[in-house]
């Protein structure tokens, strides 16, 4: 059983992780992950192992876009299993072309001691998390 309450899982996903992503705040984003966390993009079968690889992926993502927005969240929270699965919309604007892309994605987050141990990402379009 998790020592963290229901709202902890909503807050880490929305107020820390995605808030950090949307504000290009790498430290805030990385503070959500365990050192040996794994982030896997399922629709393109891309895996990022450990803190450094995940940080590198976010550096690339932030470098390629002028705007990133996550919203319209619906969460499925399981405190017993220390897991939260979230559905949401994403809008990103390419720095190079100015093109706006919209996705309807979901993430599955599995936590340990209040930080992400495993994250699985499904994207409705081309993988941005390269």
């Amino acid at each position, binding site marked *: 059983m998790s020592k963290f309450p229901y709202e902890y899982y909503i807050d880490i996903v929305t107020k820390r992780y995605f808030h950090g992503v949307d504000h290009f705040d790498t430290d805030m984003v990385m503070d959500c992950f365990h050192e040996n966390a794994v982030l896997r993009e399922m629709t393109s079968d891309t895996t990022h192992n450990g803190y450094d690889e995940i940080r590198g992926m976010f550096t690339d993502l932030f470098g390629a876009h002028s705007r990133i927005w996550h919203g319209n969240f619906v969460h*499925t929270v399981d405190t017993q*299993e220390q897991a939260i699965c979230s*559905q949401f919309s994403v809008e990103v604007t390419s720095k190079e072309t100015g093109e706006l892309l919209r996705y*309807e994605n979901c993430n599955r987050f599995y936590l340990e001691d209040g930080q992400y141990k495993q994250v699985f990402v499904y994207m409705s379009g081309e993988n941005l998390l390269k």
Partner: protein
Amino acid sequence: MQYQSSLNRAGLIELAIDKYFANVDRKYLDGVLDCFHDNAMLTVQTAFTIHEGKENIKRMFVDFMNSYEFIIHRDFTCTVDAANGRIAASFVAELTDEKGAKTFLSNTNFWRIRNDRFQEVYVYMSGANPLT
């Protein structure tokens, strides 16, 4: 949309895994459709495909079941939010066609339950959509 569910944790898992997926794998169409409200909606989000209402969902499952000799869903990891009538599950779908060719998908489903049945179902797939 927020719905009122009458199912507890065990009831949500039973509906999604023991009833819904077990009946899909058995190709027992009536058992599958019994999990849905008449006005339910099934969305394959990764392909932007929407099936609205039980009749359209039925047509989709008839085509799906006819397309494969064997359908197996396994290796479930469930995330259950009983307070909000929601359950998500990751799983492997192993589909075998009549020539014996196999397709493996690592998918995630989200179910929103009203009373004791599915009102909304969202499917996120790791590969091409077979639920057309």
